[in-house]
């Protein structure tokens, strides 16, 4: 390892994010290079100073009380929670959206479109994936079996990039939450928020009518047939 390679890894070394082999390489380099040892000491001092200057603010008095009160007194919110917990709300929402999709004339169009924009809206043909599992290289079948409840779905484009799904509107939230959606090929229209990859969905067309029935879950086409490279 030379000095340039060491400099490139200093922040990772400080954060404890270097793989063990690279950390040992860095250590060997430090044993032999006093200049880089000085640089590391300097970066440690700079990081310490920066953390000291990024002082933590405390939540204002009263905020916790207001939150506790809001959690207890808002009937609409606690009602929604009970609906979700009852289990049938998500299924009803999926069914309602599927009916809406069936009624849309554009649903029958299976034309594959590349991502584009028109009138401020963004459209594209996407595959629903488990974002974390997909990045880890797991198959769609493995993704659908994933039980990590923290994992959320995202929309994967043909070029391998992702759109994450905005929590609004609520009618499309199931696409973000339901593991059974993974592997579905969709044509979506929405708006990307403020230069991000977060898409606020406006319409969703399913491109494979054979997979519309929830009863067919968890059967999913193999990755090669889903349009995912």
């Amino acid at each position, binding site marked *: 390892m030379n000095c340039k390679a060491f400099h490139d890894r200093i922040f990772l070394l400080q954060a404890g994010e270097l793989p063990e082999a690279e950390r040992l390489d860095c250590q060997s380099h430090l044993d032999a290079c006093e200049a880089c040892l000085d640089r590391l000491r*300097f970066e440690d001092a700079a990081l310490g100073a920066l953390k000291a*200057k990024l002082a933590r*603010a405390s*939540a204002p008095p009263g905020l916790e009380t207001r939150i506790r009160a809001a*959690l*207890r007194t808002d009937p609409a919110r606690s009602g929604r929670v009970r609906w979700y917990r009852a289990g049938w709300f998500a299924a009803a929402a999926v069914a309602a959206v599927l009916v809406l999709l069936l009624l849309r004339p554009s649903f029958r169009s299976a034309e594959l479109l590349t991502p584009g924009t028109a009138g401020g809206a963004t459209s594209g043909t996407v595959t629903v994936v488990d974002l974390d599992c997909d990045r880890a290289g797991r198959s769609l079948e493995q993704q659908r079996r994933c039980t990590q409840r*923290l994992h959320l779905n995202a929309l994967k484009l043909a070029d391998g990039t992702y759109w*994450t799904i905005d929590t609004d509107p609520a009618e499309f939230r199931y696409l973000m939450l339901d593991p059974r959606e993974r592997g579905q090929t969709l044509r979506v229209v929405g708006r990307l928020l403020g230069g991000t990859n977060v898409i606020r969905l406006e319409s969703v067309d399913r491109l494979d009518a054979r997979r519309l029935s929830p009863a067919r879950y968890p059967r999913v086409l193999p990755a090669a047939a889903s349009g995912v490279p």
Partner: protein
Amino acid sequence: MSQGPPHDRTAEFETVALPQLDSLFNLALSLTRNRKDAEDLVQETYLRAFRFFDSYEPGTHIKAWLFRILRNTFINRYRAERARPEEVDFDKIEGSYEALIEEQFRRNRRPPDPERALLAGVPDEQIQRAMAALPEEYRAVVIMALLEELSYKEIAGALSIPIGTVMSRLHRGRKHLQRELLDYARRRGIFSDDPDVSTGGAT
């Protein structure tokens, strides 16, 4: 999560989530740069989190889960309405940070007591201004990594971005902020620009 009556569920949520209030407020303040908006954002985050509490897996990192909801809420409610800060030219920062350090190391074989030098008299506002100049997505990563000490993987999960993007944003953000510290120290004469003080011995 357990399926008890609503009041039990509320209490369970409060026990798990409310200890993170200061951390959420810090991140919210960093994103909104306004205490009133930060309070509203935190309250909305908790209400949303409560609605989705079933999707939280007990034993996993509650702070990262709440950060994820806060960040989504921020994008929904605030970000679209706000003007973006003046963009930082990170390519320029990258070069000037390295140049500044190399210059100091060239002039002074070992910078004198860097901890003291960097902390001496640098007002907090200096760093707060530098933070405010960072785009929101950089501020979020810096706060999560440096204040909350989340791992790169946890930050990637909270922000729905690849780990490589976390690294890139954090490293660029750090260089921008540390450059402000160094620049201030140099302007105050803590790091001398006078070649006569050099002790020689370029690296």
